[in-house]
């Protein structure tokens, strides 16, 4: 079902909802397309006319700075008309259902929706309810998926490491509540990464995580041993209230990425973080700013990768109409 929802009969991208249900050639195509789009950002006129005349609505039911901004930029660099709609879940939408909101926007002849929502499955739900020819891009749904983030991370990894089939990658922190981690795990596995490790206290690791194709350890030093890529996840304050953790300090003590812990990893290991980053909670400040860190490159790459996904989905979309 996921396959038929995301891909058309020719296997082209129709919606971009989750990494699951896609395939390696398609992921590689996204990365290659993004590669070409990185040039656009380096030109003095940072614009290509690919999506001229198309209207894209960025529908954000959850606050976001980085993701929303880079989508916005990517859309504008593709010459699309952009509508930014921020809907505070608790207030504005009272009384109006998600379906109503969607139908109203559809009536405005939007060509593509970029959606972020706090409920897992929201992007699938929206994709099931838009008219044919309208594409949906998932910009994060609950704890489920954040596929463009995962793809920009893959893009960044490929920049530095080239061959996925020889990589050891560690994902550290709140995997339980992380849509980013779920999408990264699927993407790494799909691209042939032989060893993905999840490092977290048991309270922040979902049950049956091994079924996703990872090795789990709650020991940071052990988990970091020899890894080529360290992906740190953001720790949210509410985890302290939900009995997932005693305190930020205690988390940092056992799972914070410090210079000394980084010694366990490969000497040329890169450090990634989807942001926003809590210095002194997940990561030591000096490590975040060190030469190992590619965190800011991730942000830059986010624009090209999102341009790639938007243009590929719209390509399909133009063909259909």
């Amino acid at each position: 079902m996921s396959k038929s929802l995301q891909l058309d009969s020719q296997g082209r991208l129709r919606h971009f909802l989750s990494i699951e249900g896609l395939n390696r050639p398609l992921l590689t195509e996204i990365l290659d397309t993004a590669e070409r789009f990185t040039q656009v950002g380096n030109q003095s006129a940072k614009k290509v006319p690919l999506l001229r005349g198309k209207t894209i609505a960025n529908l954000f039911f959850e606050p976001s700075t980085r993701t929303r901004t880079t989508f916005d930029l990517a859309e504008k660099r593709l010459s699309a008309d952009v509508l930014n709609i921020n809907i505070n879940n608790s207030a504005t939408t009272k009384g109006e259902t998600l379906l109503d909101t969607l139908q109203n926007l559809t009536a405005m002849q939007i060509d593509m929706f970029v959606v972020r929502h706090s409920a897992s499955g929201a992007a699938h739900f929206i994709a099931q309810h838009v008219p044919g020819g309208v594409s949906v891009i998932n910009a994060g749904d609950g704890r489920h998926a954040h596929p463009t983030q995962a793809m920009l991370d893959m893009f960044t990894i490929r920049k530095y490491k080239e061959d996925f089939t020889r990589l050891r990658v560690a994902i550290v922190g709140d995997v339980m509540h992380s849509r980013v981690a779920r999408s990264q795990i699927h993407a790494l596995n799909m691209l042939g990464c032989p060893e993905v490790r999840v490092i977290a206290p048991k309270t922040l690791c979902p049950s049956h995580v091994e079924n996703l194709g990872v090795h789990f350890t709650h020991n940071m030093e052990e988990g970091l041993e020899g890894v080529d890529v360290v992906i740190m996840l953001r720790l949210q304050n509410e985890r302290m209230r939900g009995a997932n953790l005693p305190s930020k300090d205690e988390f940092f003590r056992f799972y914070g990425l410090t210079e000394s812990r980084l010694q366990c990893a490969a000497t040329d290991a890169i450090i990634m973080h989807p942001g926003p980053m809590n210095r002194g909670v997940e990561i030591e400040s000096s490590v975040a700013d060190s030469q190992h860190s590619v965190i800011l490159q991730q942000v830059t790459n986010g624009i090209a990768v999102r341009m790639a996904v938007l243009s590929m989905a719209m390509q399909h979309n133009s063909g259909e109409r």
Partner: protein
Amino acid sequence: MKILIQNGRIIDPANQIDQLGDLQIADGLIQPTSENFEPQQSLDATGLIISPGLIDLRARLREPGQKHKGTIFSESRAAAAGGITMVSIPPDTKPIIDSTAVVELIRQKAEQAGFVEVAPLGALTKGLEGEQLSTMGALKSAGCRAVSNAQNPIHNTQVLRRAFEYANTHDLTVFIHPQDYWLKDGGCAHEGAISTRLGLPGIPDAAETAGVARDLVLIRSTGVRAHFCGISSQQALQMITQARKEGLPITADTAIHHLYLTEMDIGQFNPNSHVIPPLRTERDRTGLIEGVCSGAIQALCSDHQPHDDDAKAAPFEETEPGISGLETLLPLTLRLAKEQHLPLIDALATVTCNPASILGLQSGTLSPGAPANITLFNPDTWWTVRADQLLSAGKNSPFLNWELQGRVTHTLLNGAIVYEAP
């Protein structure tokens, strides 16, 4: 009206009867067979099974309180179409069934509709709030056969203990939905491989087993008669089975969808597979089926929860849980018999005399002198479950487009034909 049902296969689990024959009905009662019975109407039951009307231990009719989802009329009519002649109603209506007036209201409405008998369950605590005892004595006098706190938690174990003691004082069975509120923690799917993959908040097995463990301790100490509703995990079933072997006065049911569906059926966020307790693993499903076959689970029910379309038109975790199940209870029970090589008479016991006995009733039989609540069905008819053909106002079934075998042709309530297949 004198009715003669001719030449059917009479299956009466309570009396261990499974034979071809006729059934004579007069004055709303099943009559002892007599040579000179002169019927005003005859029903040819050749090729059909004549069964006691089904008794469904758990069905929300949505009235009073949620008439946009269903009414006593619409849902009891759907029940009759499903061959059901009695439904037991959890007390979480609005208003809650914690006063005799609400019991009366439901009974009157059901009588006016005239499709099924209703057995409203009384609230175990006032307002189902888990704090004050309900007026169980009065509720019993008004006709409640049992009391329950439905899916509302009772955090205070002292209140729970007193509620059990007080129910026992009035010789009432307590219907328990075992679930530890804190372990459930806002979950919407079984905590396992699927919830992890889809990022859905999970409900661990432990939510059910911890609930069962606590309740068993208090059942043991108070001696109250208890019925466990909607068991979904194999482990909880094992605990209940063990305690029953030790002599505790307990019974258990499961919702029939738990015998057919697992967490896998959530697929890509199918809201019709959102139920509480959640669909669990294949191991649980198999364990529950074995439990039905061995008698560890005595009753099957629909756990009918009809919804309006809006309730299911949202991302999975924001949809309302529940399945519209009245019209698929019988065919799914028949399928179980076929697949598990369970004698039909034993399968039908789980939806007739067993639930009756859990409610403390002598009904659910075809004994002479019993009320003529009867279902006639063709066990061979194939049909496809389609939303537009379900009589229930709720079309929220995960079995839509399933081909099922066994279709009701007639349902009789107190000797009157209340449903006849078109």
